[in-house]
């Protein structure tokens, strides 16, 4: 029973952590929340859905969907962030919100309001049993994929020049620019990376819910959002930690609370968000020290 619980928390937490990491990458550099972030899951879902009839193997479809997610993430930068970046915080928040609305309604207009089935290879939902734990294969895959991604990501941030530039930009953006790092390159790569992480997490998410509809992006956005506030909006470690904590809280509620209290779960999680913003705005793990927005 306990091991079952641990596996559930880890598999959900790994998804949440990936989503949160993608959001925090952009936030770290621009100090701005990307409200269109959840729509990357929408892009993933509809990409796979539209490729459904094609003769390609599933992994090719998923790969294409992740590429689409990266492209849309970069596109978000060009449409919603770059033109208004120098203006107020409010402006960028609203443009990303508007861009999200645009994508949702484009899906509504050109595809359908009804949920569409997203094909998934059948082995993902097969159950496996080990040490008394019964869990679908996709949960184990989520855990392994996430840990693999995290290791690659950390190594990339630590060792590559681009990773170094991104960390520098998150610490002090103006200084980084003065030292000759092209600002737009760093920002675009942050968006691309954010799209990649959201793409991987989104594909795993799709394997869980198996259908796509215009409002599908809201839940991943909220998850990433809460996880980053809890863990620390400036720190990549914080985002990962926040993802696992959120999964732990959600899962514990699911195990412990009766149905009529469970529907107030969001009230509780969002109250935590507000409380953290008030008491410890930097989150559990403090990021690099600077508050100035570029």
């Amino acid at each position, binding site marked *: 029973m306990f091991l079952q619980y641990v596996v559930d928390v880890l598999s959900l937490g790994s998804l949440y952590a990936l989503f949160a990491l993608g959001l925090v990458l952009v936030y770290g550099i621009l100090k701005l*929340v990307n409200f269109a972030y959840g729509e990357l899951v929408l892009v993933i879902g509809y990409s796979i859905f539209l490729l459904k009839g094609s003769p390609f193997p599933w992994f090719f479809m998923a790969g294409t969907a992740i590429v689409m997610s990266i492209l849309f993430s970069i596109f978000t930068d060009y449409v919603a962030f770059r033109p208004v970046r120098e*203006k107020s915080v409010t402006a960028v928040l609203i443009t990303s919100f508007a861009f999200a*609305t*645009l994508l*949702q309604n484009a899906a*509504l*207009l050109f595809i359908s*309001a009804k949920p569409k089935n997203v094909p998934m290879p059948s082995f993902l939902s097969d159950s496996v049993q080990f040490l008394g734990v019964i869990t679908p294969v996709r949960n184990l895959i989520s855990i392994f994929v996430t840990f693999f991604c995290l290791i690659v990501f950390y190594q990339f941030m630590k060792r590559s020049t681009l990773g170094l530039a991104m960390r520098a930009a998150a610490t002090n953006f103006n200084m980084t620019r003065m030292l000759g790092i092209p600002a737009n390159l760093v920002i675009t790569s942050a968006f691309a990376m954010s799209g990649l992480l959201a793409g991987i997490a989104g594909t795993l998410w799709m394997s869980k819910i198996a259908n796509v509809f215009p409002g599908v992006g809201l839940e991943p956005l909220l998850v990433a959002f809460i996880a980053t506030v809890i863990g620390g909006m400036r720190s990549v470690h914080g985002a990962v930690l926040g993802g696992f904590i959120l999964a732990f809280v959600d899962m514990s509620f699911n195990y412990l609370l009766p149905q009529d209290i469970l529907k107030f779960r969001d*009230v509780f999680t969002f109250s935590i968000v507000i409380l953290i*913003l008030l008491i410890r705005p930097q989150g559990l793990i403090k990021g690099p020290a600077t508050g100035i927005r570029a």
Partner: protein
Amino acid sequence: MKIFNNENTFNIIFFLILFVSIYLINFFIGSAIFERTITNLFIYIILVVGLQVFMGNSGILSFAHIGFMSIGAYSSGLLSMPIKMKGFVLRDLYPIFENVALDPILSIFIGGIFTAIIAAILTLPLMRLNDAAAVISSFALLMVIHSIVVGWSAVTNGPRTFFGLTKATTVEIALIFSFLTVIFALVYKNSKFGLLLRASRDNDIAAESIGANIVYLRWFAIIASAFLAGIAGGLWGHFITSFSPKSFYLKETFLVISMIIIGGSFTVTGAIAGALLVTIGYEFLRWIEKVIKFSDTITFEFIGLTEIVLSITIIIFLITKPKGLFPFKEIGYIIKKIFKNN
């Protein structure tokens, strides 16, 4: 003429003339659909001008406004709903409310005050947050209010439709309320509190150094703003007579924010212009959607065009005219300037 010297009086007179002419146009057209649109417009003016009271003067984007509107709509509906409807709509209602059926207008007013009290309790600690943290917390507040409305079935009928309200809001009532709102917003903006809050918006450190208590200034503004949102919610509820928690969520938030952005959040004129233009645009696009739908040229369901156009408009506005159509000056000043130049 002395009246022209006092800019605010001139503004108020201008809006009175504007509102009355809209009303007269409606009166002479005499179409039920048009009257519906006009009543909606007046309610939206209350909502957007109410948002302007906080957002325009403090410079902080608030997502919670539609949440406050829902509190007003549900609480006033709960008070005014006829007793025989109550047993039908809200099966698990608490006994205290079972035999309460107040006059709708009184309920709307109580709903507004109730919303203001809730806002006063919830938002005081949030008022010291700035920039992204302030926006995120208001977004979280919207989520909290929405989840409570969805979850608390005993008084809200849960995610299902809340119906059975008396249709009490007429176009005249909406007009009077929205005119009073406009007067309040203009007077507040030029009062001591409004001026100090605007000073803190432009430079918080300088404003604090001359003695502005930013937290309390913002707090007062958001309480007033929530009161107006609650009134707008009550009026809307007693106009539409049935609604669900979905009516007060991200789509409506987006609509109200687009109104205030297009018009310009720093001025009351901007808020009104935004509500007017977006309503006209919205109705026009809805009409196009309907025409396309019934023309049999396409076979699939045609929805979403309105939101697509609206979101593109907002992005274009924020890039080219980030402070909206009326960035700094109220209509009174603009007209006075035109007169002076002649």
